């Protein structure tokens, strides 16, 4: 099966006063049609920067994509011109941001913000745009869509606004949808509905989806595969079931142990010892080594990726051969 998105050795650096930060440091993964990858890791591990790199919208001038390939249906996005890239954004690679309260423009109507991508992607004009915009709102189950088109963002609830953002995202429809913690700021019941909606839209349009989150419960329910990021690298990637039952990397294990489990007997939650790494002063070795209970001499050099089962790989000396 050919992949929709194939990322190889992606590297994005940020230049700061304290030195160059390797925010994305050799990230590789591939996703097929209708497949969902969960991208998990602590804040600052490079999840969001990886996503922004895919659409080449890293915050300039500080951040810069310095290497790698991002192939969408075989074409390298990093080799495209700015004008070509603008045609791809939204239309082929769509994104949903974390906070629905701030991701819609407060001074324009929902209608204007919905019609804009439709006019750009499909050259629709006049009544046809409005009709299509209303259809899209209906597809994300917004009641009385024609009326909502005349509303302004502040007149809608958070869950409603995130649906509007979802409706814009499927206007293409895209080949890849990147959802950057789309449910973090929603109520629990609304969260579940929204996740269900995203999966339903994915079934209908067959887009690949990258789901950024630090909620492992959501990963278990929505993703086919998981990539665990630490300090700009994917330290473990594999099928959801294997990651949950046989985590290979000590960091993945620590993450799983820090989830509270219902019915577990009075067990204390395990926090991960130490602080998240300072990316500006990383050594040559494994970035997790200072906090790793299993660290040994070899961790002073960076481990490369080792496959431990079909589709399951990790960067850890514990699993390296010889």
């Amino acid at each position, binding site marked *: 099966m050919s992949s929709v998105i194939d990322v190889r050795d992606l590297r994005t650096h940020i230049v700061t006063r304290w030195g160059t930060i390797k925010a994305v440091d050799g990230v590789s993964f591939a996703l097929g049609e209708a497949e969902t990858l969960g991208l998990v890791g602590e804040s600052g591990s490079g999840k969001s920067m990886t996503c922004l790199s895919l659409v080449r919208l890293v915050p300039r001038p500080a951040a810069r994509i310095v290497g790698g390939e991002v192939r969408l249906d075989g074409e390298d996005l990093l080799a495209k011109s700015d004008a070509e890239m*603008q045609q791809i954004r939204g239309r082929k690679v769509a994104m949903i941001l974390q906070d629905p309260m701030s991701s819609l423009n407060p001074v324009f109507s929902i209608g204007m913000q919905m019609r804009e991508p439709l006019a750009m992607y499909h050259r629709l004009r006049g009544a046809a745009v409005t009709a299509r915009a209303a259809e899209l709102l209906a597809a994300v189950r917004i009641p009385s869509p024609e009326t909502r088109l005349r509303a302004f963002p502040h007149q809608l609830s958070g869950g409603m606004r995130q649906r509007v953002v979802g409706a814009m995202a499927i206007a293409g429809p895209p080949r890849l949808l990147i959802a950057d913690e789309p449910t973090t700021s929603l109520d629990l019941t609304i969260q579940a509905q929204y996740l269900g909606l995203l999966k339903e839209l994915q079934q209908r349009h067959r887009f690949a989806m990258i789901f950024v989150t630090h909620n492992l419960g959501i990963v278990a329910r929505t993703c086919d595969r998981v990539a665990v990021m630490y300090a700009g690298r994917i330290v473990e990637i594999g099928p959801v079931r294997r990651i949950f039952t046989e985590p290979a990397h000590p960091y993945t294990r620590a993450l799983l142990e820090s989830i509270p489990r219902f019915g577990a007997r009075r067990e204390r939650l395990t926090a991960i010892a130490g602080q998240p790494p300072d990316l500006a002063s990383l050594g040559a070795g494994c970035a997790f080594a200072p906090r790793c209970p299993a660290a040994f001499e070899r961790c002073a050099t960076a481990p490369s990726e080792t496959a431990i089962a079909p589709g399951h790989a990790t960067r850890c000396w514990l699993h390296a051969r010889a």
Partner: protein
Amino acid sequence: MLRFVVFRLLQSLVALAILSVVVFILARATGDPLHMILPMNASEEDYANARQYLGLDRPYVEQYLSFVGRAVIGDFGNSIRARRPVIELLQARLPYSLKLAAFAMVVSLALAFPLGVMAAVHKGTGVDRAAQIVAILGQSLPTFWVSIVLVEFVAGRLQWLPAGGADSLASYVLPGFTLGWFVVAGMMRLLRSGMLEVLDSEYVKLARLKGVAEHRVVWVHALKNALIPVVTFAGIYFAILVTTAIVVETVFAWPGLGRLAYDGITSRDFPVIQAVVLTTAAIVAAVNLGVDCLYALIDPRIRYGR
């Protein structure tokens, strides 16, 4: 919205009423106008006659009530100095002041918008610094100096534009530019800081993610959100420009309200002072009301319910 407008109009009337008392008292605090118009050798009797003729011998309350009573129907009495109805003086001057202020406003908006937006988009670069220098020069170079230099070079040596008067559209250019440039600095900095904040927002990020072209992101999505403080500022400065452009009016021989006010004050011409101040206040009130209505047009979150 209609209720809001009516309420604000009533509010303005109250403010004007209070102001009429203040200006009545302050005008009389400048001294006796008769000293300015009667000859040095005038007798006590001449003074008494003149005072009676001008109605200045009547009790203050009576003078005030007659001033207000007539002002309501647009009659501000006669100018002590010019011996003509004040309303005629106003009618001759006010349109020129309004037109010059409007022209100056257009100039400053036309400069401030590109400068402020470009400075924000290219923050920290040479473009940013150059834009700030252009804006700050307008504010820090004294208006009288800019006026004189423009008269000397553009009107004098180059003979491109008229040096004074208000006869043709060309004569608006130099005074309008001088006044407009002065206002650019504040406006440009408000736009720059507003744009910087908005360009960093999530909705601008989402607009880019949707594939909206960068110029549209900047000039449509972001700009409308940065407009409110600029509209406020422009409103305040419009009212200021109408009435206090004394230096520019003097240098460019502009028949405006600023000169009228200045002459009225120096010759203790009570009716003129009162008329100019009340007209100014009415303009300020009208501009503020206009600005408030613009807010509601720009930002849908601002609605004046009650």
